[in-house]
C-alpha cells in the first residue's frame, strides 16, 4: 500500500453504496431499479438514503416482478440507458432467468452484432444467515455457464467499490454477485478507491506449497485457513477468482506450476459446478504439473437448511479446509 494513500474504514455495504452513488453521479444514463431499492432503502440497506439524493426516477422502486423489471432493464439498455438492476437474492433471479438467458445473453449474437445490452444486474447470493432453502443458494456457477454474459464475484472491499463502474463501461450484460454475509464486513479502503479491472483473478496470499482457488465469501475462510496452516509451515497460495466468466485460467495455472497441488473451495454444489469446470481446465492445461489429484470442497448437495448447525455443516468451513490441506500435504 502506497504510504501517501489515505485510508478510511468502511463496510462492504458502504463500498457498494459508494460505487452506486459514484456511478449515478458520473453518468446520467445510469439508474438503479429493483424491489425496495428506494423507499425501503434496499433489502440489505445498500441504497439507503439514495432516493433522497437521486430521486425516484433514478432510484426506481419496482413491483415484485423479476422477469418484468429485468426485461425492462434489458430494454432500457437497448434504448441507450445504463441500468443497474438489483435483484434481492439469487434465488429470486430464477424468476428472471428467461430474460437473462434468452434475451440479455443472446441479443448481440442473434442480431448479428447489431444490438448489445449494456446492463448490470446485481444480486445477493450465498448462505450463512439461516435463510433456508429459498434465499441462500449460490447459483453463480450456473450463470457462469452462459456465453454472452460476464459474471463477477467481488469479495474484497476494493472489488465491491471498484467492479461496478468497470461493469457499467462494459458494452455487454454483467452480473455482479454480492455474498450476503459480506455486507457487514468492515475494513480499510483507500480514500481514492475507484474502478478496478474485471479481467483477472488475484493472488490474495502468496504461498509455495499448495494453491487454493476460491471466490466470494469463501475467500475469507480460505485466508483464515491459510493463516492457521502457516503456523505449521504450510504456505498456501490463495487465489480469488473475482471474475467467474470468463475465467482467468492463466493466474491459477501459473500458481499450480509452482505449488503442484490444488484445492478448489466453492460454495456452489459440487455436481456440474464451477469447481468442476476449473478442475477440468486444470486437468487439460496442467495435468503434468500435479503431484496429486485436484481436490474440491463444495457445499453439501442439499437444499440449504434453516437450523444454524445444519447450515454450518453444509457449507465449506475453515476447519474443513485446514483438514483437507493437511491430508493433501501428508500425501505428497
Amino acid at each position, binding site marked *: 500500500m502506497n504510504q501517501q494513500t489515505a485510508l478510511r474504514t468502511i463496510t462492504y455495504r458502504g463500498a457498494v453504496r459508494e460505487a452506486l452513488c459514484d456511478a449515478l453521479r458520473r453518468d446520467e444514463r445510469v439508474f438503479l431499479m429493483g424491489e425496495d431499492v428506494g423507499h425501503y432503502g434496499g433489502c440489505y440497506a445498500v441504497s439507503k438514503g439514495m432516493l433522497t439524493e437521486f430521486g425516484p426516477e433514478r432510484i426506481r422502486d419496482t413491483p415484485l*416482478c423479476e422477469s418484468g*423489471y429485468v*426485461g*425492462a432493464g434489458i430494454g432500457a439498455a*437497448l*434504448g441507450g440507458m445504463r441500468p443497474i438492476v438489483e435483484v434481492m437474492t439469487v434465488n429470486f433471479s430464477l424468476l428472471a432467468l428467461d430474460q437473462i438467458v434468452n*434475451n440479455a445473453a443472446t441479443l448481440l449474437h442473434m*442480431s448479428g452484432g447489431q*444490438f448489445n445490452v449494456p446492463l448490470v444486474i446485481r444480486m445477493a447470493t450465498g448462505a450463512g444467515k439461516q435463510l433456508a432453502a429459498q434465499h441462500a443458494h449460490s447459483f453463480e456457477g450456473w450463470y457462469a455457464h452462459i456465453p*454472452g454474459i460476464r459474471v463477477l464475484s467481488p469479495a474484497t472491499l476494493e472489488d465491491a467499490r471498484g467492479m461496478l463502474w468497470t461493469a457499467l463501461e462494459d458494452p455487454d450484460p454483467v452480473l455482479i454477485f454480492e455474498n450476503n454475509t459480506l455486507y457487514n464486513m468492515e475494513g480499510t479502503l483507500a480514500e481514492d478507491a475507484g474502478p478496478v479491472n474485471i479481467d483477472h483473478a488475484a493472488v490474495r496470499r502468496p504461498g509455495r506449497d499448495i494453491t487454493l482457488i476460491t471466490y466470494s465469501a469463501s475467500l475469507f475462510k480460505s485466508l483464515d485457513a491459510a493463516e492457521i496452516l502457516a503456523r505449521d509451515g504450510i504456505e498456501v497460495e490463495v487465489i480469488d477468482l473475482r471474475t467467474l466468466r470468463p475465467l482467468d485460467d492463466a493466474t491459477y495455472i501459473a500458481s499450480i506450476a509452482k505449488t503442484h497441488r490444488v484445492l478448489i473451495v466453492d460454495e456452489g454444489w459440487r455436481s456440474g459446478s464451477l469447481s468442476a469446470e476449473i478442475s477440468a481446465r486444470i486437468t487439460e492445461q496442467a495435468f503434468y504439473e500435479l503431484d496429486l489429484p485436484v481436490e474440491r470442497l463444495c457445499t453439501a448437495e442439499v437444499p440449504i437448511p434453516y437450523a444454524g448447525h445444519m447450515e454450518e455443516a453444509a457449507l465449506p468451513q475453515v476447519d474443513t479446509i485446514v483438514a483437507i490441506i493437511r491430508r493433501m500435504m501428508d500425501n505428497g
Partner: protein
Amino acid sequence: MTTLDKKHAIRLLRQMLLIRRFEEKSAEMYSATKIRGFLHLYIGEEAVAVGVMATLTPEDAVVATYREHGQALARGMSADSIMAEMFGKKEGCCLGRGGSMHLFDAATRFYGGNAIVAGGLPLAVGLALADSMQGRNRVTCCFFGDGAVAEGDFHESMNLASLWRLPVLFLCENNLYAMGTALRYTQANQDIAAKGPCYGMASAVVDGMDVMAVEEAAHAAVSHIRSGQGPYLLECRTYRFRPHSMFDTEQYRTKAEVEEWKKRDPIELLAERLTEAGLFNNEERQSLEQDVSAEVEASVAFAEAGTWEAVEDLTRFVYSERRKV
C-alpha cells in the same frame, strides 16, 4: 379515415400483397429446403402489421414475435435481407444468425423477432422507459399473440408500463389460437382488451381483417400515447389462414372455419372496397401483382446469390468487439 385516399390505400394494399406473396414464396422455399428450422406464416393477418406500421414514425421502436416477417416488411426492412436471413446467408439482416424467428434491424429500430412467448413485452417496457427518461417523444409498439396473454410477462409488463405511464402500444394479434389450443381452452376471460382497464390502461378492440379499421384504431392509440396519456392495449381480432408452422397438421380447427375466415381476406376486403369506390381496377391489380412478384423473386435471387458467413466467425458477437480492455 372517412374518405379513401387512393395513394395511401394502394400503398397499404401493396404492403399486404408483398407480405402475402413473400410468405407464399417462403413456404415454397421451405419445401425446397432452402429455408429450414421453424417457419411461421402470417398469411391472413397482414392487415394488422400494415395498419399499425402506417401510424408509426421511423423514430419509434418495434418489438415483434417469431411470426414477424409481416411486421419486418411493413416496417421497411427489405425483402432481400429477410429472405437472405431465412436462407441463413451472411447478407441476411442478422448474418444468418437468427433465421425466420429472429429478424433484427437497427436502422428501422426493429428489436426482433422474440421466440419466447411474451418475452418481448418487458423489452418494450424498457425501451419506452429509456425514451421516457431521456425525454424523447417516441412510441414502442410491441406485437404479441393471444397466447402471450396467459404469460406472467404480459401482466408484469402491462402493470409496469401503466404504473410508469410509459409510451408503449401493446398490440395483441388475437388469432384465436395459441399454436393449436383455442383461446376458450386457455383464458378464463377471453375478452383480452378488457385486461387493459384492470391495469388502468386504455384499450380497444378492432377488426384485424380490415386494414383501414386497424390503422384508424392504431392511430387513436398512438395519439393517446404520444400525448402523454400512458400506454395502450389494442386487440386486433384476426385469423391465421395457414398452419401454426410448417409442422402443424391442424387437427384443432375445421376446414369450414378456415374457409369462413378466408371470406374476410384482408387483401381482398381492401381491394373490393377500392374497386367499389372506383379507385382500383383489374389492370392495376395485375400491375401491383407483377410489381410485388418481381420484388419477391428478386429477394430469392439475392438470397441464392448470398454467401455463407465464415465458420471462423462463429464466436463473433458473443461479446462486443468494442470493449475496452
